[in-house]
């Protein structure tokens, strides 16, 4: 059964790496629901978060293929339940419709949204939340006409207390040392 999965990759910040990751998905006819890239807590290490709708078996294989990319340090996948995640949406409405009644103001209050900018012509509203929540607000606002709408890709954190990347890097270093020592031994034999 297909469901939503969040793929997280830690990688070097190299040109073209996003492309290398996404072609693994496109080759398998998997659509990307959202994709976000940013620097991680460790300088120089890039974090990409991808949301896809797929069967878990297929997701496992995809993550192994991503993990195999030389410049990728590590790739993981999680279900929505396993992560804390958020998206951000921006809505532009006519300032006139905001002024005509208090309906829009009520919507903003009840959705915990906020106003970013008001000009005589238009007003920009911001809302963070899960997709259903930002979509809900869109439906509400659209009754009065939404001029422009944009939703960001998903960002997500695991429920573990710290980003285990530094530990991971240390373990990785030890692993590579072991492999290298063995390789040298084998050569010497």
């Amino acid at each position, binding site marked *: 059964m297909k469901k939503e999965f969040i793929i997280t990759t830690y990688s070097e910040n190299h040109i073209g790496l996003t492309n290398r990751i996404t072609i693994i998905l496109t080759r398998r006819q998997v659509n990307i629901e959202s994709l976000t890239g940013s620097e991680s807590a460790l300088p120089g290490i890039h974090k990409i978060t991808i949301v896809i709708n797929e069967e878990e078996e297929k997701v496992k294989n995809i993550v*192994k293929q991503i993990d195999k990319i*030389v410049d990728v340090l590590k790739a993981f996948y999680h279900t929505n339940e396993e992560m804390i995640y958020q998206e951000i949406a921006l809505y532009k409405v006519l300032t006139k419709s905001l002024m005509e009644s208090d309906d829009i103001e009520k919507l903003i209050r009840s959705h915990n949204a906020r106003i970013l900018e008001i000009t005589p012509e238009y007003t920009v509203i911001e809302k963070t939340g899960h997709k259903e929540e930002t979509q809900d607000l869109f439906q509400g606002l659209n009754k009065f006409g939404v001029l422009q709408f944009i939703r960001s890709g998903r960002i997500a954190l695991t429920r573990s207390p710290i980003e285990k990347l530094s530990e991971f890097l240390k373990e990785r270093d030890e*692993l590579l040392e072991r492999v290298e020592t*063995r390789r040298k031994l084998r050569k010497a034999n």
Partner: protein
Amino acid sequence: MTTKEKETRRSQQQDVEITGSEAVIRSLIAEGAEVIFGYPGGAIMPVYDALYDYRNALRHILTRHEQGAVHAAQGYARVTGKVGVCIATSGPGATNLMTGIADAQIDSTPLVCITGQVTSGLLGTDAFQESDVVGLSMPVTKWNFQITTPEDIPEAIAKAFYIAASGRPGPVLLDITKDAQFGKLKYKYAKCHKIRSYVPEYPVNKEKLAEAATLINGAKKPFLVFGQGIMLGEAERELKSFIDKTGIPAAWTLLGLSALNSDHPLNVGMLGMHGNYGPNIKTNECDLLIAVGMRFDDRVTGTLKTYAKQAKIIHIEIDPAEINKNVKTDVALLGDAKKILRLLTHIVSPNKHKEWVKEFKQAMAIEVKKVIHSDVYPTKPGLTMGEVVRRVSEYTKNKAVIVSDVGQHQMATARYSRFTQPRSHITSGGLGTMGFGLPAAIGAKLGEPNREVVVFAGDGGFQMTIQELGTIAQEKLGVKMVILNNHFLGMVRQWQELFFEKRYSFTEILSPDFVKVADAYGIPGNHVTDRDKLDDAIKVMFETEGPYLLEVNIEKDDNVFPMVPAGASVSDILLSPEDAVK
């Protein structure tokens, strides 16, 4: 001191200011490259200019097409176990490499491909002979990288060789802009041994090893299937020790061929679509399947729905992404085949499995009677591919490097050549690239100059890279070419006959007189049509010094059997066309 030694010594000077191009050449020499294949052009000219000063230390083979260069580098890498190197210019030069790179990727062949690129200021402007080579090659390389500054050249080349050869090998492409080739740098070379984002292989898991040993000791009908991973991991001796101790019959994939001597009593033959009868039917009868260094390709497994469902499965594999990709395993042993097989051999109990091995021999007897005898010792008029392949193999005392192209003759070559040493069978497996054979044989001969190198090709595939006769002539390479000419694109014709109601759509192919073509290049050759002339013709071919082309006329209805039809179960293997009708 010879010129070669002088050049080599000069290439080793560190901390000197040189051009990026010279750094490319010096880095290649530092990595132990001795032979490279390529074709010059605008954007790679600075590298060719630098090569001129090192042409004795680094032998360059000018092919007639970039596809020839990359396939030759593949052939060289496959026989030697070293990294194959090829060079091409930007644009069309680079795009012409793609087929070979894709071939090397799917067949895990270590390659470093170097392409010239337009000056960095022109990138993205649709400049003359500009193409997005990094973008184009991304899906078919293990790693690729564009170099735009001369200082990056030595490190990138060191990384390229390390990535290409380590772990599961594969092709790497470096795209070097012309300004990076012209620019100066302070040259210093250090080999790469570690990349923090890349784990070439994992250490062996001792618990899993014990689990595997328990399964092996308890199995009544264990069956080992191996692929090219044995040779890539230099685990031929370990494989032999393991089966000798456990008495487990072993079968090979197309690319695993020659890792185990043909006459080893436990070598039960080839797996897959045109493999042997026993290995295919026994796959679905064994109680334990031990897969080593192979990836369960669909041409090996047939339909996965019925593949070895009754058996426990142990998968010994270096690439984690191959585990559970196609076939679910019970015990996955991740890591180096050499190490894992050695450790396993220590802890498993000795065994014979006499009755079980006998079952394979019985299946082989059936196949000999129904297929092999008439393929190799036919009595009907008209030569068969099987008899030609077997005669050639026997003439070389089964010691030759055998290269094949793609199609019916490829299957006949795999089925009927015999081998006494590893890395002796070179063919395009995963990609099935027609035109691979002739250039790959060039690379193989340069890698193994003291061995006989024979390429079998069909009339179709040979014409796809026929221009490489020029390379053979120019370099005076003693490649023995045997064209098995049935005047058809035989494998497609076979499928049309069996599955498309004999509608022979565009498979009849007109060929030139290949012997005359060879003659135009100054390469001697001969035609054979009659059985009683075959042995003499083969003798003359091998006794003639240098290259030789033998064109053999083959019966057009000499089809390849046995056959597992596409999408069928391995146990539904057909022994003859009559079986197909049934």
